[in-house]
Every structure is written in C-alpha cells, then in structure tokens.
C-alpha cells in the first residue's frame, strides 16, 4: 500500500552535507572579478584570489568524508495524515455533470475527419451553382476564397477573377480543405456532448453552427476577405454553409460509436 514507507538501512541519523562557506566565496570571487572588469584591476586581482581559494576549498569538500556529517533526526517524525474515509464521490455514469465532461461513447475521431471531408466536397456545389447561375465562371468563387491570403484580389480586376489561376486555385483549395477538416473534427468531438437525440445533433450541426458561422463571416468578412465581401451573395453563401453542416453532421451522427477509455483509468 502507498502508506508503506521505504526505509533504507539508516539509523536515527541522516547523512547530510555540511554547511560550507566556499560556494558563497566562489560567487563573491566571480562577482568581484566582474566588478574589476567594469572598474579597476584591483578588484579583478582580489576576485581572482578569492575565486581560486574558494575553488580549492570546494574541491576539498568533495573528498570522501570531508563534506558530510551525520545529522540527528530532531523533529518528530511526520504526523500521520488524518484519513477521511468514505468522503469521496467518484465520477461514474449517472453522476451529475458526467455526460458533459466525459462522454462514455464517442464517435471516433476518424468520423469527424470523414464528415469534414465529405462536407468539404459537397459544400462547393452551391457555390458553383451560384457562380454559373449568376453568369460567372466556376473559378470565380475559388479565386475569391484565395483572396483571404493574397493581396490585390479585389473588386478592381473582376475579369481576372473569372479565369483559372493555378496558384489561386491551389490556395483556395488548401484553405477550404483545412477549414473543412478542422470543423469536421470539431463536429466529431462535440456532437456527442449534445443530448443523445439525433434530431438535436443534426439541428446543432446542420443549422445552428452554419447560422453562427455565417453571422460571424458577415460581421468580419470586410476585413478578413474584402474581395469575397464585395462579391458575395449572402443567401447562397449561407446555403453552402448549411450544406456543409448537414452533410458533416450526418456523417458523424451515422458513424459507429466506440467506447472511450477515460483519461485517468477505468
């Protein structure tokens, strides 16, 4: 048991280091040498002498039998600590707060990733549809997304934005993929914390989150991505978000749950 104390073969005495003045003297020597560099060589010499003496003294302390002394145990041994048996609540299924803190079964992390990927693939469809219906090319929304990173993608060169630019497309795809993936992951982790009703989970993941996200984008887009802000069509934008949210949530909710080993043991 834990309260067994490990007693090496020691008597009532402990062997402890003897107090010694050399560490302080060594420090003093070093500091005086420093002061010597700053001011006068006299300090330098004095510091050097003290330093050398302290070094020799210190090495002397290191020799077997010189630096140690037996010290009697003076204080009473540590008080045994009062135990309070029975006053512990452990976290078990059914404890209040349990569900929120530790879902017993979760969707595997991979479900979230999959949800993000699938959502990420279907999400551009409304965007493309909007682009074609409103007379733009399908590169238009992709280029706009890349405007988060690239300067100079703004309203002044709309014609440019209709064309295929491999760099812009690459950047757009990377941004889109990274965000889809992370948000999917979050879905995978967080949806199980919502009361175990599929309706609620779908409502949260498919409606609430996209709404909040659209709202945030609406508020911040003028800075985050002025190009997008200038050209975006909000209903279509929101549609994209809903499509993503519903798909990702569906993938997550449908996945097989696995039991989780709570961190910290059974």
């Amino acid at each position, binding site marked *: 048991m*834990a309260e067994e*104390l*490990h*007693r090496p073969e020691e008597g009532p005495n402990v062997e402890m280091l003897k107090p010694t003045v050399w560490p302080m003297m060594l*420090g003093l020597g070093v500091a005086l040498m420093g*002061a010597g560099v700053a001011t006068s060589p006299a300090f330098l010499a004095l510091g050097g002498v003290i330093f050398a003496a302290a070094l020799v003294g210190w090495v002397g302390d290191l020799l077997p039998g010189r630096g140690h002394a037996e010290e009697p145990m003076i204080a*009473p041994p540590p008080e045994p600590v009062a135990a*309070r048996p029975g006053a*512990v609540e452990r976290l078990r299924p059914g404890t209040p*707060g349990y569900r929120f803190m530790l879902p017993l079964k979760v969707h595997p992390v991979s479900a979230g990733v999959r949800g993000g990927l699938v959502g990420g693939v279907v999400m551009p469809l409304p965007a493309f549809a909007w682009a074609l219906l409103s007379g733009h090319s399908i590169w238009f929304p992709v280029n706009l997304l890349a405007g988060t990173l690239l300067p100079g993608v703004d309203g002044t060169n709309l014609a440019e934005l209709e064309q295929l630019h491999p760099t812009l497309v690459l950047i757009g795809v990377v941004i889109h993929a990274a965000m889809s993936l992370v948000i999917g992951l979050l879905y995978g982790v967080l949806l199980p914390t919502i009361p175990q009703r599929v309706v609620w989970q779908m409502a949260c993941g498919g409606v609430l989150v996209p709404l909040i996200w659209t709202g945030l984008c609406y508020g911040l887009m003028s800075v985050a991505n002025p190009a997008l802000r200038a050209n975006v069509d909000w209903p279509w934008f929101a549609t994209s978000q809903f499509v993503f949210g519903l798909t990702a949530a569906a993938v997550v909710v449908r996945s097989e749950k696995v039991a989780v080993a709570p961190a910290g043991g059974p």
Partner: protein
Amino acid sequence: MATAVPELSRERLSLVAGLHEWVVTVDHKKIGVMYVLMAIAFLLIGGLEAVLMRVQLLWPRADFLPPLTFNQFFTLHGTTMVFFMGMPILIGMANYLVPLMIGARDMAFPRLNAMGFWVTLFGGLLVYASFFVPGGPPAIGWFAYAPLTEKTFARGPGVDCWALGLLVSGVGTIAAGVNFVATIVGMRAPGMKLRQVPFFVWTILGTSIQILVAIPPLTAALVMLIFDRHLGAHFFDPQAGGSAYLWMHLFWFFGHPEVYILVLPAFGMISEVVPVFSRKVLFGYEFMALATMAIVFISLGVWAHHMFTVGMSRTLDMFFAGASMLVGIPTGIKIFNWLATLYGGKLVLKSPLLFALGFLSMFVIGGLTGIILACAAVNFQIHDTYFVVGHFHWVLIGGTVFGVFAGLHYWYPKVTGRMLSERLAKWQFWLLLVGFILTFAPMHVAGVLGMPRRIYTYEPGRGWDLWNQLATVGALIQAPSYLIFAFNLVWSLRHGELAGDDPWDAWTLEWATTSPPPSYNFESVPVVRSRRPLWDLKHPDDPDWKYE
C-alpha cells in the same frame, strides 16, 4: 499537529551566529527562502523606480525626473524585475519545493545551489553598484540594443556593471537549471514516475530546459559586448562592419524564452493551487504536460516577433508571426484545463485561490494582447508603444506575480509553520487587482493613440494625458498592496495562526512532513504510487493509484 519552529527561534539567540548559518547553508530550503527574500527586496526597489517614473509621466512636459534619470530608471526597473525579481523568486520557490514534492532530501548539487543564489545576489548588487560609477547607471533599456551600448554612445562603466551583473547572475541561473534537471530526473522518491510528479515539477523541468538553451546565448552576447567595450572587438560596431542585428537576434533568442521562464513556474503553482482549492484532481494532466513541453519548444522559434519593424523579409515576418500565434494554442490548452478543474469543484475561497482566480482572469487578457502584437502588420503600428508595455505587464503581473502570490500564500504555512493573515491577504488582493487594472489597461489606449514607450515626457494635447494619469493613480493604488504583503510576511511569522503540517488538506508530498520541514525533509523516503500520494493516505478505501 505539533509544529516546531526551531530554526527561527534559534536564530534570535545570536544575530551573528544566525547570519553565519544562512551564509554557509547548503540546505535547499534555506537557499529557497533567501532567494525569495532577495527577490521581494528587489521587487520593492524596482517598484519604487516604477512609481517614480509614473509620477514623472503624470503631466505632459513634467519636470520631476531629468531625462537621463528616467532612462536609467526604466533600464534598471526592467532589468531588476526580470533578472532579480522574476527569475529569483521562481527559482527560489522551486528550490524550496521541488525536493519536497518529489520526496528527496535535497537538490542534486546543494553546494552548486548555494553558489547559484550567491552569484545571483552579487550580480544584482553589481548592477546596482552602477549608481556609484562615473556617469551612473546605464540608460539603454533592458534589452540594450547595440550600438547604443558601445563605448561611442555609452562611455561610462554603467553599461559594464549592467552587462557583468547579468553575466554573473546568469551563471547562477544556469547552475540552477542544471540542478533542477538532475534532481527531477535522478532523485524522485521510489515509485514516482515522471508522469506522477506534481505538476509544478513539470513546469520547472520545462523552465530548466529553457534556461539551459536560452541563457548561454545571452551569456555569449554579453561576453561579445564586453569584448567590444574593453578589448576593441567589433561585434556590434557598424563602423567596422559589425551588426546591430546580431545583438537583437541573440538577445531575443534569449529574451523570448525568458518570458516563458518567467511564466511557466507560475503556471505550475496555479496547477497546484487550483486542484486543491477546487477539491478535484487536475484535469488533463497528460495534456497539460504535453502543452508545457510544446510551449518550451515552440517558444524557442518565435523570438523575432520582437523585431517585426527592423525590416526583415516579409516571409520571415510571417514565419515568426505564425509561430507566435501557435504558442497561444498550448497556452490555451492550459487555461481550458484549469477552467475544467474549477468547473464542478467545491471551491474553497481562501487567499491562494483568490490569487489563482486573479491569474486566470487576467493572464488570458495579456495572452490575447500578445496575439494582437503577433499579427505582424498590426505590430508595425503598435510595436514599441505603450500597448506593448500594457501587454507585458499584463502577463508579467497578471501571470507571474499573481501566480507567485497564489503560491506564496499557499506554501507560507509549510515554510514557517504559521498562516498568513487572511484579512491582510484580501486587502492585498483587491488593492493589487484594482490598482493593476487601473495602471495597465489605460496604457493600451495610450499606445493605440500613438504614445511610444521609453519617453520621459510627452507633448500636451495629444489625448495621452488622461490615460497616463489613470495609470499613475493605479500605480499608487498598487503600491500599498505590495507593502501590505511585505508586512503580512513579517507579522504572520510571529502572530499568524499555527498552521499544522497540512492546513489545506492537500495531496502532494510536501504536506507529508512537518511545517517547517526538518533539514532532511523526510525521516524516511516515502513510496509513491500515484500523483496524489496524500490522497491515497487519506482515502484508503478509494486511492488514486487504482485509477492512474
């Protein structure tokens, strides 16, 4: 619970004998106490300098301090607070606690430990000796950008005192780092695995790694500076092709990890206080440990976020901006885990928790202003303004100082056998909180309104007056808080309530011995089977080790 106060009463018998005992001691506990007392002294000195600066800034074109004196004061204030208050107080507390927490009799190298304390003290005295040299203390700012430090621009020996003081105390800091690593790796109680050490010990391990990696470059840079000044070398001499850049890079390569050296141990203290006062185990211990190590390593690669305006390439700017923002993630993990520990706990609202709550609510703000600063383009505007001054006091006081106070209130009973007065502690807390916010919040506004830092005076009519006046009033509210604390320390030594061995009903090993502990700490070395050995003792029917 009988409590003996043998050392302290014996000391009164003879002042000389008492002093001698402290001078020659190699006991990690005494050394720890000396570190902390020294740091508190420097805190008062540094604070006094700050208050004088604040008075000078009360009105535009005020005439309270001459320009040179003001510049010397912020140099000394920054240097003192970072090197002779912040680091020593943390190293001192770690010195006292780490061996106790891991069930060891002392540090791995007790004599080296003593040497570390003494060089730190002498280093501090050397810096302050600059008051007595021609030209007085250095006026170079705590990061001492070259070539302002070269002989051409700073003729007097003040800069030498500064450089050598830091060099000497740096030796002590490195010694402490070596010592902690050896102690934590090699001297844990039987059975105590690295993943079972109290969380504070983890943060000290992280801090020590940073010390070992970051302080030597500073030492090297200081050596270069001294060679320039005394042997005619040209490291930082643009006339001979030397570069002002080299100093910046070397200094900040040290300087950024330094700020985490200053905050990680405070994180550790919070991680001890929050669980005990929430009556819960620390949430996500493994992730906290991982996050600590992530901070240690990521923060070695962010230093040039102090240098966005020096004209690096845009790519480099973005590298350092990205890396700096990344540090926010492991830091966030810690914040969230503390919150989760609090959540659902039964909070015991005693002074240690009060300061811990102060830490939690304030540090986040400082961290977030750090993220704002890390946005390179925004930094072009607010670099070197009072916004930065606001940011770093917010993390240094809201983080380090609040954390340290939580720790000092928590462990004072262990060190002295008596409790600090709760009433004084509450006064201290509220004055500090209010004064602190009032001092440093307005600085962010002044910075955004265009006020640069390190100016001894400013033009009227720019809209800065009000914010400066608020800040000064705040500083004057803070001042009594520190004095109350100093008073409480002394007063409670004799009049405090007797504490007993384990006043907080805590769970780590330091509470398993007497208060104060005997010189050998533990009569017999305990066997450890979980993160909370005392929990196991107190709850034999439901011990932790079944769950870990």
